[in-house]
């Protein structure tokens, strides 16, 4: 089995990329290329070259020329990670008439030059990696991608501004969309905001028309008060199981007249839409412009569900739309692609105990302030202290609460600077109070953002450069009594300052949804350490994921503002529309196959397969893999006691010979040592 004993039957070309100095700065590429040309002849190497940028068109042409002139039957490129350029080099081979799967890309950048500093060791490692690739590639087989039809429908998870945008783009193009939203209404966080920066448009004024469009769109099926439970299948053909929670309201009969929530005797603190600052009833719509307009009964707070009597809503409903017997409903929809636009959670400011939120009455969060400033909110748009009536005469706005802080979240939440500037403006405008902004850095990098900052400075907001050390009510002198005191180092002065204030607003950061990891698991994608969904490429492929057919958009991918969220929603939609229009999709042919003549019919593989892709033919007493269901994990290949299963692309021969190749140098050295 050892590669050396075999007579080379393949003609292999080896191409070592410099990647500028990215690889060549650490790995001696010329030496690796020379070594491969001289020492891997037994393995079939007939050409070995190094080049500045293999992925450039000149580099690709170099390979194509060799394929034609040298009659190469196999190609090994040693460059960056296959996750970046595998497709590039496969396509280059295809262009020269070589089956793309006869090309192997091995990583000497991410896994070698970028992570090592010892040049000699890195060069030796590169040789081993190349030898591994060469030994492996001779066992590659020409493969043809599997083509499967694409279901034209798309699932959009999350009915915030990102999901709304994505759903409308696809629906407007004429394809069906299922829009799933956990809350009773679509709209998301944007529906809670008062004004939007930097133009100070009323948030509801620009959002609600879009919400209405979604509600009326013939191609959009809204599934509100619903959650995705399970996703099966693969790109083009997903089967999605969705739980529709019982609303206890018959939507066919309900007119959304609102009599039920008027009559409902049970008042509940609304810690969701009103951020804890206001109340709602046990039967409610989150806000007047809710889409859909039908209310839900919150069975945890409803008197009837808790005590067995009341039913006031049912008594007064003019259309008999209340139905206490409704049960949760499980439905399954079939879609070809999925967009996750699940948004964000607000950082819990109580965790920063030195800022006193939850302990000191007049410390508010940004979300509370949004609701307070909103004319449809609990104070009718009046900015007042926790007593509900006193207008503050001095207000401090604290940036970076829970963000850019290793004690909480490392990242910058991206929106807080602009949001805090917006707050400063609103406080000024509505109360005339003195406003302080406490910041570490002011970040206003988008269009018209810095102009907004200039405007706020001009309005007279006082800026203190320093991360607030603490907010306290422990007065040190009579001037501080009865006030909140912000203690901070004014870093531009180099002195500690204590600033007595009536109100403090904490710009709490954005966090991934608390259940983002569970969600990622349902959809088969990954999360960063923080919990944000990971895109396929941070720069070049920001809305796709490593899982074909699953896209991400908006804050689920990372903190961003409304314009960026909308752009991502539209981008994900465009990507999907492009796929749907091709009507079918090519799948990677990494699949398992069972050699019937070797199969003993033991059925061990049947239970191993997580996708139920292996059928057992009772008549022939053998198993067979359904290539459309097989995902290519290879577990059955390993489990088969008869060795009757082959994993395409990852066959035993390929892996075992790669091990041989990787250890070629090591073994030589050991032999030398023994000799």
């Amino acid at each position: 089995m050892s590669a050396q004993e075999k007579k080379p039957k393949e003609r292999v070309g080896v191409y070592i990329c410099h990647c500028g100095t990215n690889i060549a700065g650490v790995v001696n590429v010329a030496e690796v290329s020379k070594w491969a040309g001289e020492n891997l002849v037994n393995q079939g190497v007939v050409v070995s070259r190094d080049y500045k940028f293999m992925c450039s068109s000149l580099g690709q042409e170099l390979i194509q020329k060799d394929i034609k002139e040298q009659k190469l039957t196999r190609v090994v490129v040693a460059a960056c990670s296959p996750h970046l350029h595998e497709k590039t080099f496969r396509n280059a081979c295809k262009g020269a008439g070589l089956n793309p799967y006869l090309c192997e890309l091995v990583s000497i950048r991410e896994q070698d030059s970028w992570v090592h500093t010892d040049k000699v060791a890195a060069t030796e490692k590169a040789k081993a990696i190349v030898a591994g690739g060469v030994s492996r590639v001779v066992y590659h087989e020409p493969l043809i991608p599997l083509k499967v039809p694409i279901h034209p429908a798309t699932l959009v998870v999350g009915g915030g501004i990102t999901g709304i945008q994505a759903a409308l783009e696809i629906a407007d193009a004429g394809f069906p969309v299922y829009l799933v939203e956990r809350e009773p209404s679509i709209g998301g966080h944007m529906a809670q905001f008062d004004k939007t920066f930097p133009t100070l448009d009323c948030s509801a004024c620009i959002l609600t028309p879009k919400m209405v469009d979604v509600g009326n769109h013939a191609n959009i099926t809204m599934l509100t008060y619903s959650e995705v439970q399970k996703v099966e299948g693969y790109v083009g053909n997903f089967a999605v199981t969705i739980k529709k929670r019982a609303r206890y309201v018959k939507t066919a009969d309900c007119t959304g007249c609102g009599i039920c929530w008027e009559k409902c005797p049970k008042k509940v603190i609304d810690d969701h839409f009103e951020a804890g600052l206001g109340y709602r009833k046990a039967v409610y719509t989150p806000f007047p412009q809710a889409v859909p307009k039908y209310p839900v009964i919150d069975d945890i707070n409803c008197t009837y569900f808790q005590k067995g009597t009341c039913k006031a809503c049912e008594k007064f409903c003019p259309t008999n739309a209340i139905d206490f017997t409704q049960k949760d409903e499980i439905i399954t929809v079939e879609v070809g692609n999925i967009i996750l636009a699940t948004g964000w959670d607000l950082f819990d400011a109580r965790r920063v105990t030195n800022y006193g939120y939850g302990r000191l009455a007049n410390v508010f969060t940004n979300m509370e302030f949004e609701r307070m400033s909103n004319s449809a909110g609990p104070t009718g748009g009046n900015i007042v202290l926790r007593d509900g009536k006193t207008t503050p005469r001095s207000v401090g706005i604290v940036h970076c609460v829970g963000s850019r802080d290793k004690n909480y979240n490392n990242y910058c939440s991206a929106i807080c600077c602009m949001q805090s500037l917006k707050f400063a403006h609103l406080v000024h405008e509505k109360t005339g109070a003195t406003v302080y902004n406490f910041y570490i850095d002011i970040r206003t990098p988008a269009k018209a953002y810095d102009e907004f900052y200039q405007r706020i400075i001009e309005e007279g907001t006082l800026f203190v450069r320093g991360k607030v050390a603490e907010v306290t009510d422990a007065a040190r002198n009579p001037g501080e009594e009865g006030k909140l005191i912000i203690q901070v180092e004014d870093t531009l002065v180099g002195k500690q300052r204590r600033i007595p204030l009536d109100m403090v607003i904490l710009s709490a950061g954005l966090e991934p949804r608390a259940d983002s990891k569970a969600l990622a698991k349902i959809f088969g994608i990954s999360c960063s350490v923080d919990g944000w969904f990971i895109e396929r490429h941070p720069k070049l492929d920001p809305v796709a994921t490593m899982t074909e057919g699953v896209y991400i958009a908006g804050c689920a991918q990372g903190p961003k503002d409304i314009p960026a969220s909308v752009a991502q929603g539209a981008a994900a939609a465009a990507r999907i529309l492009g796929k749907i229009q091709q009507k079918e999709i090519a799948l990677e042919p990494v699949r398992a196959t069972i050699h019937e003549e070797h199969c003993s019919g033991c059925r061990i593989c049947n239970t191993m397969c997580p996708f139920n892709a292996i059928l057992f033919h009772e008549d022939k007493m053998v198993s067979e893999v359904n290539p459309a269901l097989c995902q290519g994990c290879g577990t059955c290949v390993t489990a088969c006691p008869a060795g009757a299963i082959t994993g395409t692309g990852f066959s035993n021969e390929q892996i075992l010979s790669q091990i041989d190749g990787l250890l070629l140098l090591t073994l030589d050295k050991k032999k030398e040592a023994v000799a």
Partner: protein
Amino acid sequence: MSDYLFYPGCSMESSAKAYYHSVMSVCKALDVKLNEIEDWNCCGATEYLSLDVTPAYALIARNLALAEQQANGATTVVAPCSACYLNLSKADHYMHENKAFGEKINAALAAGGLHYDPGQLVVRHLLDVVINEVGLDKVKGKVVKPLGGLRVAPYVGCMLPRPDYNSRYSDSEHPYELDDLLKALGAEVIDFPLKTACCGGHMTQIGPATAFELIRRLISSADDYKADVIVALCPMCQMNLDAFQGQVNGYFHTNYKMPILFFTQLMGLAFGEKPENLGFGSEFVSAHEAMKRIGVQTPVPEEAKPARKKPAGLPMPPLRVRAGLKSATGNKEATE
């Protein structure tokens, strides 16, 4: 209840005898067996660390080495003093985290025939043991004389909740362990905003103006909340707030009479122990009045010389001027 290795610390032998007696009484009541580490030495407080690194850590580590030697199955070192607790856990932490550093300290210990394996012992403060090992249920069960009507300011200080290498406390700024304990004793606990603020530490000796201000803030805040007593859990905190209260009053022209007690003293009272056996009467600011309010007769401390008499001829300002001069003429002093 299991045995603990006990590191009392120097103050317990001198300025904080009240703490010592009350700790012993309370631990006995709770079946917490404390085996004093034989021949322990001073932890160096914050002073040795200011001068040298290796000797400072070697000094601390000697105690850990002795404790490990005498462990006899016990794994926990209990320190009642926050500074001692922090130093012991700090040495264990850095010796464990940085292997080379641990080896260096052990090389020093070897000169005295000792060795400590970092990570072998767990260092805990007495409060932590009472809350998390004994449990509040057991504490409640021992209460025979609840402290109803006594308003207490729970004062935790710095070095217990910070840096808290092993995340033992509920929060580094507003931990609730001491509050819970005092509530279990039946006391009325105020939401003390300066719960973990600084008592001034050694600044009473170095920059009294700074220290006095820190002490004033604490006492004044507790007074604003109408606390009857401040409860401390560290001899340094207790001494700064108690022994220097007179000076602070003189310096700021205030007239605070805030008794500063150890949490174990209140525990002992609630457990029905006689005040005499809990070190009452040794405080500078008498707790007599405050305790009388809840029907407890504590010994009246023997009045020392009138401390609040205005010193003739030496008005208040000198310290400030001096402090100001200190920096401005710094160079001059150094060349003297």
